[in-house]
């Protein structure tokens, strides 16, 4: 709040922690409160605290692209929810300098019985556009979504891909200074994913800060300026994407034989490609591919 408008950082996190109180009885029932009036207080105090995030300090510069990687349950989505202002931090400070747009879930709040056009408009307002902005952007939103005549059909008739395209199309038209992306690109076909990344590149050119959570390490290496990996709610490693990814993959391989096999396959494929580029004879390629499963 004290920012003088010239803050070099788009996002500043100071020792942010998030505690969830695990409680199998949630939501509370009136029965419990009436039967044991003190139960409200005792439930609050007796609950098992679970720290989804612990002491996260992070500064993201304007125009920087930060990738976040980590296991399921490592706190990635919690972090984005806190950044989006949806969930308050339990401890610490969050400071956002600029208008943010969040792609935590494409098409959140779309109404299945309303038309694509109406949903796009309402969704645009929900995501922070003004009425005039939304009306002006609507033709462009519809065009980007490639829905054509289907735009006036109720959304329950849409395929999941169509649903996604419209959700993404709305989200990118919000023109945020800071864009939060949560794994939304894992779904959708290759063509659509490419289109999304193309758009992210234009956003980057516009000096938009992007914070992206992904399991796709290729995305991270290609796209991010910097990366962090989360483990059990703490920042495990921070630095150049390639280093963070290597560290993350190594940890994964140590823990999971399936990951080790997948890694070997990927490595073999990668080496084969490299070999092809280098014009090496195919016999050699087969040799590398043959080492795919060393233990049969």
């Amino acid at each position, binding site marked *: 709040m004290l920012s003088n408008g010239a803050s070099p950082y788009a996002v500043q996190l100071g*020792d942010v922690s998030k505690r969830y109180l695990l409680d199998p009885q949630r939501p509370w029932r009136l029965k419990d409160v009436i039967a044991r009036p003190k139960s409200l207080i005792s439930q609050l105090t007796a609950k098992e605290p679970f720290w989804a995030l612990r002491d996260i300090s992070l500064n993201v510069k304007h125009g920087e692209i930060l990738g976040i990687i980590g296991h399921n349950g490592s706190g990635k989505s919690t972090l984005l929810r806190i950044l989006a202002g949806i969930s308050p931090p339990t401890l610490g400070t969050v400071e956002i300098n600029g208008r943010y747009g*969040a792609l935590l879930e494409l098409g959140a709040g779309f109404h299945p019985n309303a038309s694509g056009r109406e949903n796009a408009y309402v969704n645009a307002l*929900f995501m922070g556009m003004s009425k005039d902005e939304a009306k002006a952007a609507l033709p462009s939103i519809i065009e980007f979504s490639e829905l054509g005549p289907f735009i006036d059909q109720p959304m329950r008739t849409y395929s999941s891909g169509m649903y996604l395209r419209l959700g993404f199309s709305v989200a990118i038209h919000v023109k945020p200074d800071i864009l939060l992306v949560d794994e939304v690109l894992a779904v959708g076909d290759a063509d659509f994913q490419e289109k999304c990344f193309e758009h992210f590149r234009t956003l980057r050119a516009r000096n938009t800060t992007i914070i992206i959570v992904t399991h796709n390490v290729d995305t991270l290496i290609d796209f991010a300026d910097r990366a962090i990996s989360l483990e059990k709610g703490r920042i495990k490693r921070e630095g150049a994407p390639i280093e963070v990814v290597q560290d993350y993959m190594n940890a994964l391989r140590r823990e999971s034989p399936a990951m080790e096999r997948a890694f070997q396959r990927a490595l073999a494929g990668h080496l084969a490609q490299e070999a092809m580029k280098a014009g090496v004879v195919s016999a050699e390629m087969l040799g590398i591919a043959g080492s795919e499963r060393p233990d049969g």
Partner: protein
Amino acid sequence: MATTTAMPGRFAASAAPASSFWDLLLAVTLRDLRVKYHGTFLSYFWWIARPLTLGLVMYFALGRVLKIDIENHAAFLLSALFPWFWFQNGLHSATNCFVANSGLVKKVQFPRIILPLSVVLGSTFEFVITLPVLVLLLFITGINPDWTWLAGVLPLLALELALLCGLGVLVASLNVYFRDIGPGLDSVLLLLFYLTPIFYPLERVPDGYRQVLLLNPLTPLIEEWREMFLFGDMPGLDLWPTVVFSVVAVAAGWFALRIIGKNMADAL
């Protein structure tokens, strides 16, 4: 630059979204209205079907079978049933609005109050648009439309809307933590229907009971609606308990949402 580590956690965003609260509220309300009656052939008719059906049943059961003598019985019933159903529909549908939209609440940051208010506004729209039908029905029963209606309807509308907004936001917020509110409210509304002089005149309620009924904030409201339509009386000072209760309801709703709203995404 503030770099202090505050306790508890603090979130500060320097740029507010450009969207206007009222535009969003209106857009959501209109979308829900369109969606609700899309695919029904008789949408307008359904808005009046419920008060009309109940009015018919009571007219027959009380007036014709039990032979209860109430002057202009049909008009007596209709003039109270229409505003009652507005209240009932509005509150009933507001209860579940956060729970039903949990996907949106958990993924998008927006003023949470939009959801209950849009539901209440939708039911208000349904009521206002059926008022001409009520006027027509009253005319058929022999009551000539009165110019005082135009002036009297505004304060009554405003008051009932305020009451609904306050209670709607309150029950919707509490329902996030206490899911009993939903089913419990239906019983409360049923009880309230009988504790409000809708199908019986207040002055025929025996002494002692009448004072109890007057504690119900809906009693003066429904009475004033009826007196305006039947006798052309302007709403007056008798409404003060409803006004007081509405103010309390709005304050309670605002307070409940302030406390619950911040953690709503985690609680849902």
